[in-house]
């Protein structure tokens, strides 16, 4: 199986070692009963859920009841419009038994659903201080990313394209900057519509991908979850294997300077008079 990860390749976040680099979500499913099969098929070990949809009093309809016990729960602050709301939602999530990981989403624009980097940084600082493992959803902006790192984020989660658009890695160049510059794991979140796009993000050196819409709204969510699991693993393996550097122009496969050899060629010999 090509999906078998390298035994010594793991992603460590908040003291937890993850073998799978695909995170999945619980939103948008036609039936939450699909969630266990999606988790299994994808191999994912982390799952995010909107706290606003969690209803512990709902009995069998409670979303949390569909999440397999082995999954790391990553509640998110979907619906928060300010740093304060995100902080309150995170505290409620912990009080409700959803663990101490939190994905911060602060979105105060209901048309474009783009995250507010300033408010996200403020919420990150507060929650990291309170012992949360904070994974902030963000625009891929280097300055915001540095602020988040300084605020105590455990990773950053830049968007590949506006959420729910399935448009792929539109922010590719900016994500590449984050990967190059940050010491934190960069987890590409939002916008990934196809397994090939997740694979591309992993080849670039992303630490992980979070995929929800593309799986939940597929004709066969379980099949799509499996495909994403394989694509993420393949992209990771390609990254570790050192894919050939991409050049803007074609380069001749028989280089013009090949005659020089690896040692740079011989030094001129002294010629006898």
């Amino acid at each position, binding site marked *: 199986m090509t999906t078998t990860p390298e035994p010594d390749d793991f992603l460590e976040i908040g003291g937890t070692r993850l073998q799978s680099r695909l995170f999945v979500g619980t939103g948008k*499913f036609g*039936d939450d009963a699909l969630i266990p099969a999606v988790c299994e098929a994808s191999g994912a070990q982390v799952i995010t859920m909107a706290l606003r949809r969690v*209803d512990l009093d709902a009995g069998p*309809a409670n979303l949390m009841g569909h999440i397999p016990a082995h999954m790391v729960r990553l509640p998110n602050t979907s*619906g928060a419009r300010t740093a304060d709301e995100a902080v309150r939602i995170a505290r409620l999530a912990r009080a409700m038994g959803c663990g101490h990981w939190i994905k911060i989403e602060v979105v105060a624009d209901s*048309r474009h659903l783009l995250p507010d980097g300033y408010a996200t940084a403020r919420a990150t600082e507060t929650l990291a201080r309170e012992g949360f493992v904070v994974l902030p959803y963000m625009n891929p902006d280097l300055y915001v990313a540095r602020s988040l790192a300084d605020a105590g984020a455990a990773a950053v989660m830049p968007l590949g394209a506006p959420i*729910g*658009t399935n448009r792929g890695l539109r922010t590719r160049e900016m994500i590449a900057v984050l990967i190059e510059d940050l010491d934190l794991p960069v987890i590409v979140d939002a916008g990934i519509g196809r397994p090939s796009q997740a694979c591309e993000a992993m080849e670039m050196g992303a630490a992980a991908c979070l995929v929800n*819409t593309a799986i939940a709204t597929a004709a066969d969510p379980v099949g799509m979850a499996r495909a994403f699991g394989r694509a993420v693993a393949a992209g990771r393996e390609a990254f570790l294997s050192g894919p050939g550097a991409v050049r803007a122009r074609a380069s001749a496969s028989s280089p013009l300077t090949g005659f020089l050899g690896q040692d740079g060629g011989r030094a001129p010999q002294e010629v006898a008079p």
Partner: protein
Amino acid sequence: MSFAPACAALHDGETARAIETADEAAVLRALDAPAPGPHDLAALLSPAAAAHLEALARRAHETTVRHFGRTIQLFTPLYLSNHCTNGCVYCGFNSANRIPRAQLTPPQALEEGRAIAATGLRQLLLLTGEAPARAGTDYIAACARLLRPLFPSLAVEVHALSEDDYRVLVRAGVDGMTMFQETYDRTLYATLHPRGPKRDYAWRLDAPQRACRAGMRTVNIGALLGLAPWRLEVFATAMHARHLQRHHPGVDLAISLPRMRPHAGAWQPAHPLTDSDLVQAMTALRLFLPQAGITISTRESPTLRDNLVPLGVTRMSAGVSTAVGGHTGGEAGTGQFEISDPRGVQDMCAALRRRGYQPVFKDWEPLADAAPGAA
């Protein structure tokens, strides 16, 4: 900034002509537009677009599934009072109609709320007629405070209030506001609302904006379809929504498409919509406002509602009674309008699941109990 000047400009005849005369090429361009603008919306609402209804429906479906998934939010209305001082010629609560009038006390409202919550619903819409002396802001706030613990999402559909009054309701736990302009045509509005405080068109038109400023999380607007030619009404509704989004980007905007039904006053709509008209209106709105909620009420039949689900709907009511006290069999008054879909919550859920859609009951977690510092 008020929507009034822009709304008045929409009624100068140019917009109606643009909608009526859009040709097929404009419709095809609009269907292909990545982010349809007002010109595209006019084309999508045009008579020429009717021939492309299937293509519109497919795009609306794809857009809705991408943004909302296969989920439908469920809510129900709770009629607190049908006392009314207005004379809206089309409404069952019209003060001239001799119908039994009733108003729940706040404890009675709580009883109704308990009966509703027992069905699993977690989103409630409180309604009153316009009789502020009996059912004013303090009364509505008192009911809201009692009902809040049962309903994480609590909205009001009441008369147009001041910004301060909306703030009172927000503090009482109300987080959503619904306000139908009825018609955006100011001249027609005057003839349909001959007496009572609702005569003030401008006060009503800016009520959603006051609610946004007061801190409501969701604002739901709409026109009562059938009062005026629908294409321009839907265009004006969409532009009103866009105006609110631009000025209050943090507020979730939703649009209702209430189509007029017969009622106790035997008033009939002058510009009735066919089912195809309704589908065109909904799908055009979805393409223009991909992130907006769209609500379909129980004015529509079960069969039609079920068929509309994949076309852009995000919110539906279930287990509806439009009569005061209708959930506990108490002091039942006459309903505001006749409902066509009497299905209870379980039946609605079963119908949604048969279509591959998940009913969503809860969509917000009240934060009052998680005050800063309460780790």
